[in-house]
């Protein structure tokens, strides 16, 4: 079966800056994929190539095996972009109906608006919407064509915690309809909650492509955190750890052998308090992955 979206050894240069350095990516129908990476890693560029908003400098980008500018391919895709505007003087319902008219089999307008949680703002002008409501309107516009593939570029940027949580649930609801979702984010818990597959991009290269669990296990199983005001660099010498960060007096170690680490610390007689051992989350994995890239 033709993949929903493909990058084949795609590179992209903006002048002298190489934003993508040969990315190959197959996204199958029904997958929920999170593209993760720091700012400027090449996430938005990847999405832009897949949508035909940018042309690859070399390599190819395909949507359902077609040129992404093909209108038939685009009719199967919904998009939420970062920082794109909509006319302030249109009402929510009007602009949703406009976008519905672009697609062959759109969702009913009421349904799209309800799925975005904008029922009460149906007749409001765009300029009267709050930032979060505006993001939800973009979401309504992205799903109103009942797309097979939904592209979301940093969908929750600028939202508060509660807003983000409920927004993630809306995306999950859409994914549960069996649709393909490709989202970029640097909120790592979003990738963990939504995606079955995480593609980590850093400096234009895919550095990991696996399930969130695999990515976490690849790096470090556990996180050991404690407070140690008297800590010196020598105290951590030779410990079986994959990463260490110190902020104020709080030390955080990433390791696959927490027991051995603690045994050794106690043997060295280090004074520690507020000890905490927990499974590393995706954020820890992510920091370890990208900082490993730094040493490369």
């Amino acid at each position, binding site marked *: 079966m033709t993949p929903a979206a493909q990058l084949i050894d795609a590179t992209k240069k903006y002048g002298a800056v190489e934003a993508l350095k040969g990315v190959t990516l197959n996204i199958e129908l029904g997958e929920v994929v999170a593209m993760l990476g720091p700012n400027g890693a090449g996430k938005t560029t990847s999405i832009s190539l897949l949508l035909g908003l940018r042309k690859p400098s070399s390599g190819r980008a395909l949507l359902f095996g077609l040129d992404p500018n093909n209108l038939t391919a685009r009719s199967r895709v919904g998009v939420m972009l970062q920082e*794109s*505007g909509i006319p302030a003087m*249109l009402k929510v319902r009007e*602009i949703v109906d*406009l976008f519905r008219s*672009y697609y062959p089999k759109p969702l009913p307008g009421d349904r799209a608006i309800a799925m975005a949680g904008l029922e009460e703002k149906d007749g409001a002008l765009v300029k009267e919407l709050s930032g979060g409501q505006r993001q939800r309107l973009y979401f309504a*516009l992205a799903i109103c064509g009942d797309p097979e593939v939904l592209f979301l570029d940093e969908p929750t940027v600028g939202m508060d915690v509660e807003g983000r949580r409920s927004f993630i649930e809306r995306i999950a609801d859409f994914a549960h309809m069996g649709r393909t979702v490709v989202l970029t984010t640097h909120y790592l818990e979003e990738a963990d909650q939504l995606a079955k597959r995480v593609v980590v991009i850093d400096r234009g290269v895919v550095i990991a492509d696996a399930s969130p669990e695999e990515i976490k296990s690849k790096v470090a199983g556990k996180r050991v955190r404690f407070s140690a005001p008297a800590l010196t660099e020598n105290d951590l010498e030779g410990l079986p750890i994959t990463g260490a960060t110190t902020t104020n007096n709080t030390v955080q170690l990433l390791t696959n052998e927490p027991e051995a680490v603690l045994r050794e610390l106690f043997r060295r007689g280090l004074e520690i308090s507020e000890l905490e051992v927990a499974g590393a989350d995706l954020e820890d994995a992510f920091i370890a992955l990208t900082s490993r890239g730094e040493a490369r």
Partner: protein
Amino acid sequence: MTAAARAPIGPMLVRQTWTEFLKLWRVPAFSATSLALPVMFYAFIGVGQASQPLTRGSHITFGAYFLASMAVYAVANVMIFSFGISVATERGMKMDLLMRATPLPPQVYLLSRCITAIVFAALTLVVLFPFAYVAGGVRLDLSEWFTLTYRVLLGSIPFIALGFAIGYLSGPNSAVAVVNLIYLPTAFASGLFFPRGLLPDIIKLISPYLPLYRFGQLGWDAIGAPTSDNVATDWLYLAAYGVAFFAIAVWAFRREEGRKFS
């Protein structure tokens, strides 16, 4: 792929056009000024001397002459402003980016904007004509009303291209200034506010080469006022300007495409 792989063009065009219309209509800076300004100018300049003959012994009144001037002014104004400023603003808001990612064919978008602009232009005449009839006592033959209407609507097409070119060449903040700097002086120099005879000599030399002057001639001729060339020459000038503006607009559009989408 089945026939339903793409949305039908007809309903899309209707919906897009209606939305473009609402977008313009709800911006008072555009809708109120484009409807009210020509009427206001007519009230200030035209009404007072509406019944005077245009020249000594002429059967054409100044009221009729100035109606033709203001019809041309109003229609070209809509074309330049609705395209120039709103295109520049939407580019500034990156709306084109989101539209680009949808399956809306660019031709449908362009056509919807043209239809909207022509409908708006027609609306300005719907306001201006009755005002001139009542307040200015302008009486024309039915055929003259008709000729004036179709000529100013048809002759406005080159100004669509001009507006489009301005919209792509200027930024969202500079578009208003650019439009005013180009449009108001050329409207004066073309004799839309004062008969050309009253203009300084140097301007009189330039004005025959201005597109608005040629457009004005079509209007004045429609109500029977004497003009300096025959109508065919005026149409030719306008057509040539239309082609030139269109070429500039396409070039500007391509330049932007190369910058933003390559």
